[in-house]
């Protein structure tokens, strides 16, 4: 029995200092992504959530070229990208603009990498993620910036909800929908800049979409959905770190796979339930007709 436990929880998983940092930072990222993801899914901005982390990568490449801290480049590009998407979008539709800004950012990223000429693995690890190897200082930075993002969302909560669910109604109530959208995009950009250096663009994106989408199938109540989304994201990250540590395979794969499985389960459960409800209603109808 103890050998099985040893295989699952390999020695050092909770005692090595770098693993402890991994657990903490992974959890922080999951909480931030779970909360922001709720709004991303509600507003259907999956493309933006994909584009900003990926585009921020170009900024990191630029910073590496200039010899500056990559996080600064990343933040500059992802927030800049968010601002330009918000500025160019029309009537809440921004898929075309997102595509254009994303390709432009990646194009400049290609240029920076090309000029740099050094094969930079740390830049690619930004794309696919490397949770192992986070320093203690980074954790504090992440936590502080993450709390800022969440606080901004709490302040924006009511107007943002209104603007997302019924933008015309919100406008009639005097809410400046465009400004609210802009703020939201900047928050996503900022959150991206915090989470990407820790877990990579792919992980940030997976954690923002699938857990929140799964939660949206389970409950319609906003607060419960946020909680659910955070819970799914955190559990996903924990299992992924565990399995990744055991197998040595990339974390990104496990996070994506587990989060998608959660989404599939939630969707299937919802389907089953609605079908059950329908049949109950049918039965009632039938009994009414026969009586």
């Amino acid at each position, binding site marked *: 029995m103890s050998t099985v436990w040893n295989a699952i929880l390999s020695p050092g998983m909770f005692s090595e200092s770098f693993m402890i940092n991994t657990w903490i930072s992974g959890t922080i990222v999951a909480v931030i992504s779970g909360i922001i993801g709720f709004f991303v899914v509600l507003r259907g901005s999956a493309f933006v959530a994909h584009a900003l982390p990926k585009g921020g990568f170009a900024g990191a490449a630029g910073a590496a070229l200039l010899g500056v801290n990559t996080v600064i480049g990343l933040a500059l590009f992802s927030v800049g990208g968010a601002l330009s998407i918000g500025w160019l979008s029309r009537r809440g539709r921004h*898929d075309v603009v997102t595509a254009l800004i994303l*390709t432009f950012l990646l194009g400049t990223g290609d240029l920076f990498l090309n000029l740099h000429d050094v094969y930079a693995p740390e830049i690619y690890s930004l794309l696919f993620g490397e949770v192992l190897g986070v320093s203690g200082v980074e954790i504090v930075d992440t936590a502080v910036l993450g709390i800022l993002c969440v606080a901004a969302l709490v302040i924006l909560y009511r107007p943002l909800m209104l603007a997302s669910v019924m933008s015309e109604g919100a406008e009639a109530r005097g809410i400046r929908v465009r400004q609210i959208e802009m703020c939201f995009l900047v928050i996503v950009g900022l959150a991206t800049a915090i989470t990407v250096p820790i877990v990579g663009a792919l992980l940030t*994106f997976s954690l923002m979409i699938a857990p929140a989408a799964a939660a949206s199938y389970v409950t319609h109540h906003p607060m419960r959905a946020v909680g659910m989304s955070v819970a799914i994201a955190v559990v996903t990250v924990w299992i992924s770190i565990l399995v990744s540590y055991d197998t040595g395979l*990339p974390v*990104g*794969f496990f996070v994506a796979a587990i989060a998608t499985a959660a989404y599939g389960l939630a969707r299937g459960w919802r389907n089953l339930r609605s079908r059950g409800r329908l049949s109950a209603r049918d039965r009632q109808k039938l009994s009414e007709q026969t009586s």
Partner: protein
Amino acid sequence: MKKLLHVLFAPGFFTNASVGHAVLVGAVVAIISGVVGVFVVIRGQSYLGHALGDFGATGASATFLFGLATLWGFLGAGVISGAGSDVLGHGHRRRGRDVTTGVIHALVMGIGALLLYFDTTMTNVTGAPETILFGSIFVFDPSLVPVVVVLGVLTLLFLLILYRPLLLSSLDADLAKARGIPVRWVSFFFMCCMAMAVAQSSLVIGALLSTALLIGPAATAVRLTKRTSLAMVWSATIGIAATWLGILLAYDSYDWPPVGRGWPVSFFVTSLILLFYLVSRFRLRHPLTVARETQTESRRKEAIRHEYSVERHS
């Protein structure tokens, strides 16, 4: 005079074989992406159009691992995952559709990360992520040219057959259903068209430029004219212009600092495409243009409806 020519076209531009290939293939890709792109933009499927490139990249990583031809990886993964997003996203409005695309996108990219990990650890190919992500129009297998051309012609033929039902179901799905058009199948077949277009373009010019050429020129063209067919011509033209100018600038940039390195084509093409789009958005505001612009969107729908009914009744 000759000096000026040399500044514009660095010596050897017209005789260089790989430039010749790039110009030819770039034009083919720009035409197909431009034509398909108009529908992508009208239907609001830019995200799926971009995701298909990443799906294809995952397929390419898989074929890298098994040593198959990359084309089949691109096509297979594109069609399978695209079909997945199409089926799962059905019945959702645009917002929900993008979310389901996002879920599948993340999953496929996760699998891609795993495959890339195997690629780099088992086959010892260091440049794999860079090649798959960015690609390069100057470096590709010339034997692919006929494949790309055939695939492109097939895509266009396919789109031609789909054209009318697709137009109506993109515009007004309910009306299309009432007229007996199988909207779901039309949407699925169009997704296949997109997957083919994206597969061949990401194969030769990389996933990055593939998205740029699919969305950018079409988004610009749709702002220039309200007729769908004319928008396709504009879109292809803009795409070709951006690609050729990009190739020229990249060729010239060998003389720019840092000398001898050259700047990547993708940088020039994406910047040019963004520039064209911005110009179409913020061109000189004549009072007449502003008045016209506010009407364009509703007028385009009206025009398509009219176009369709005329074709239908004649």
